[in-house]
């Protein structure tokens, strides 16, 4: 990609995290520079969503060691909502439904919270509707979904599009997309990926967690990492994803065995 900057957007060093006493992340190092797209792949249960949630500030996980710098600030000092206001966005692997709250209300509340944090005035309802409509076009979402309760009864694909709609409205600096491609049909995958690509820009970094090369055909990553058992087992460029597609993850065990880590 052109326009890479030397400054890191996100710098993770030796990150270890656990949940209810079980260690899941065992020393993650990752350096994401502004404008870059990183893909994180890896077997089920290897800790990808855990990493994404720890970065978003979920309090169920405890960070046991390591540091995370985000645009020069100590990310781990911030609460989940402060992180969002500072420009971090997590597209959930399993978006949550909230019966009783309309999607439009949810979006407007979120946008206003972020704007207040930035000392900007609350968005005018008419301007808001205009903004949302243009972003809904981008992700090919039906306007009816705006007036339904948040993700309530949404199909799998509608939920994923809704995540990208939220991302487009909130305009984050760092977007972490956790398996946004799973549950999407082939056309929806293309539309959502095009939506994400349209949001790619020099000052915005994107981390995509995915199991499939297919998404990376559309959203071409600068770096690909394989997470295994809470550690980054390999990093490479986009060709690594192609290699994984052919060979799967069996080599991980071979590596482990070689390193005598199997015990």
């Amino acid at each position, binding site marked *: 990609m052109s326009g890479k900057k030397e400054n890191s957007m996100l710098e993770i060093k030796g990150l270890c995290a656990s949940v209810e006493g079980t260690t899941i992340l065992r020393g993650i190092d990752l350096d994401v520079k502004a404008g870059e797209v990183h893909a994180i792949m890896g077997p089920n249960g290897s800790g990808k969503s855990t990493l994404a949630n720890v970065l978003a500030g979920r309090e169920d996980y405890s960070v046991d060691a390591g540091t995370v710098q985000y645009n020069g600030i100590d990310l781990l000092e911030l609460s989940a909502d402060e992180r*969002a206001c500072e420009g971090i966005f997590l597209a959930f692997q399993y978006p949550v439904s909230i019966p009783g709250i309309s999607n439009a209300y949810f979006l407007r509340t*979120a946008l206003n919270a972020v704007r207040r944090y930035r000392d900007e005035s609350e968005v005018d309802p008419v301007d808001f509707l205009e903004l949302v409509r243009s972003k809904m076009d981008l992700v090919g979402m039906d306007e009816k979904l705006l007036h339904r*309760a948040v993700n309530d009864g949404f199909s799998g694909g509608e939920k994923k599009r809704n995540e990208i709609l939220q991302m487009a409205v909130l305009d984050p600096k760092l977007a972490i997309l956790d398996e946004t491609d799973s549950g999407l049909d082939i056309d929806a995958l293309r539309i959502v990926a095009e939506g994400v690509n349209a949001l790619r820009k020099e000052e915005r970094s994107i981390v995509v967690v995915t199991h499939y090369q297919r998404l990376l055909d559309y959203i071409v990553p600068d770096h690909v990492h394989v997470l295994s058992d809470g550690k980054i087992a390999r990093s490479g460029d986009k060709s690594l994803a192609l290699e994984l597609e052919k060979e799967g993850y069996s080599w991980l065990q071979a590596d482990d065995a070689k390193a005598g880590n199997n015990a």
Partner: protein
Amino acid sequence: MVAKTWTEQVHTSSLKFDDQGAGLKRRREHALEQFMSDGFPSRKHEEWRYTPLSRLAEGPCSPLLEPSEGIPESSDLPIEMMAKVVLLNGEFRQDLSDLSALPPAVRIQSLNQMRRTDPDQLASLLDQFLPQTSHPFHHLSDALLDDGVHIEVVEEGAKIESPIHILHIIDGQAHSGSAHVTGLIQVATGAHLDVIEEIRSTGEVLGNLRWGIGLDPQATLKRVRAFRPECASIFHGTRVVQQQGSRFDDLFSSSGGELIRNELHVIHEGTGCHCELLGAYVGRGKEHLDHHTTIDHKVEDCTSREVYRGVLSDRARGVFSGMIHVHQDAQRTDAKQSNDTILLSDTAEANTRPRLEIYADDVKCTHGATIGELDENAIFYLRSRGVSVDEARKIMVRAFTSEVFVQMEDRQLSDFIVNEIQESIQAVEVDHG
């Protein structure tokens, strides 16, 4: 100074009333006698097990509130109204009310006036819609009957477009005391009426409000009740008799009372009736919010749906006791009831008691009750979008309560009640658990 006991006080007050007709006289005497002998029930009484009446029974509210001098601030609702009825300390105040736009299809009269001009008719209406019972607050309202309101849609098939606003103002700023109001609503065959009832209060007061409602065949009544009385004790009782094919919708929201007891008794006398009892309540501090409903399915092919939801913080307590009585002849009854509560603190408490008595064999009755906490996943979802934890919790409380009303077709009325709830949520201290 020790407050006068209720029995002394009620006795003196009751004897001051001069009744014209024998019917009214008999009701008053009977009620007074009953109250003198029974007083307030103790916690041993099944129906009153969870209702803390001891503070009230000590008597600070036993004197009747004097007519208030202060003109209360007008609270104009964001909805166009057909008429406004203001009851200030129990007195129907023509000067504060506005009946100028009332169409001829609707009649509104003060009970005080009826007591003087039409006592026999009033007595027979009361006997029909509010027969005397063994209920302490009914005794009080009968023994102290002074004023109230009679609302009647007289023209068959009349669809009254905008609601009638009933505002109770109970002003105990100068002295504490009680106000007793009796209301009657009748809707003619095929006619429709909307009513919004509000309570505002100041000081330590008891508001004892009691309604008798009669719906003729195919009549529909939608009533919205928004109670934010601030530190008052409110007893609110309603008895509804529904004739064939009629429909009663009741939307209720309450918060901010020291003690609110909401009683509803719906009787389906004609076939094909429907009633919809929806309620949401938000309690904080040491508030006590008490709901007792009885639906009598007396005849066949009637349906009822009841959804009550509460959110309780601090040391607040919520009670729900819902009886569905399906009589022997009430075949093909379809009755649904649910009561869900969210507790925001360890010290809040909910008691829920669904009761079904079914004597017919071909019926569908379902009931469910849950007590839980706010969905932490949803709160994290909101926070991950920039919403602070306090706001996220308030949004979840709003979501939980307003969901009761989302199925309503009338957006205007449901938006009104959702906003009322929203106002009370702003005041709730959300415990971080």
